[in-house]
């Protein structure tokens, strides 16, 4: 089902009951976003450039986490912003602009990934995640373990550990837990069933927990390897 359309009719996700909504914290969207989007739609390039400046870091992290290749990540980011500008007329404002932009960027990044690794397992293929998932290294991290690291060091750790995940798990985690797309939106974007998304998400979360354990377990900070 990829690549998906930029048309907003496909961007609208099924409404979830409150109990099903993602319960974890989200970034606050600046209140002037609709004003900037409206101005950009009317041809105000500087308004669009303001939106680019606001989201370029997050979009680059997204494309980098999906492609795991800097050149592809840069190209996918550029193409996503250009495509968003081209198709702004189709954006009706029923969802957040950022959500719409993310969907475009995911699509561009997935195309790069498939082009570079055509023989890799297809992302929309059902894969067996049924092996034993019982966690090892059950050690408490204590409160706010991330505060033991500087911001840049923490970014480096997170980029490293997510890059070590296989792409089917990495991309589901990126969409579901970092971009906070719903399970249904993630399934639609990747051409997967909802149970497949849930299964991969559980596996991804447990793998990342395991990988972060070496940095965050109490009394167990580890020096970050440079130039990974």
């Amino acid at each position: 089902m990829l690549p998906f359309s930029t048309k907003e009719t496909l961007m609208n996700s099924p409404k979830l009951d409150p109990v099903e909504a993602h319960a974890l914290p989200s970034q606050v969207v600046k209140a002037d976003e609709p004003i900037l989007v409206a101005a950009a739609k009317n041809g105000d390039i500087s308004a669009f450039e303001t939106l680019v400046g606001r989201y370029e870091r997050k979009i680059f992290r997204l494309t980098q986490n999906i492609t795991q290749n800097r050149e592809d990540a840069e190209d996918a980011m550029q193409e996503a912003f250009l495509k968003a500008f081209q198709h702004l007329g189709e954006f009706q404002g029923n969802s957040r602009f950022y959500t719409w932009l993310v969907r475009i960027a995911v699509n561009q990044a997935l195309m790069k990934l498939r082009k570079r690794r055509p023989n890799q397992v297809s992302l929309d293929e059902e894969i067996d995640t049924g092996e034993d998932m019982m966690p090892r290294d059950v050690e408490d991290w204590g409160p706010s373990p991330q505060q033991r690291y500087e911001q840049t060091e923490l970014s480096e750790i997170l980029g490293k550990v997510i890059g070590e995940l296989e792409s089917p798990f990495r991309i589901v985690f990126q969409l579901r837990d970092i971009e906070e797309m719903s399970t249904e939106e993630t399934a639609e974007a990747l051409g997967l069933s909802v149970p497949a998304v849930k299964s991969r998400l559980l596996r991804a979360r447990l793998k990342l927990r395991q990988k972060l354990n070496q940095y965050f377990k109490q009394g167990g900070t580890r020096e970050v390897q440079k130039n990974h």
Partner: protein
Amino acid sequence: MKCKKIINELADYLDESLDPILRTSIEEHLGNCKDCRVVVDTTKQTIEIFCNSEPAPLPLTTRQRLHEALAKHLRHIRA
């Protein structure tokens, strides 16, 4: 309830999308099983750390290339 069942239900538990009866059973188990409690807590922290993390600044050359490309193409697209 066994520890394996807790792991299998972990994603829905953390997303608060379990039915109340199953949720209560899990919470009873967590009250008595330190290992499961640690796994649930550290997995929740894993999600929060990623979700709340600020993306690194764009490398300077990446930012330059992006804005040069936008400057080149945006006016062309709009024209």
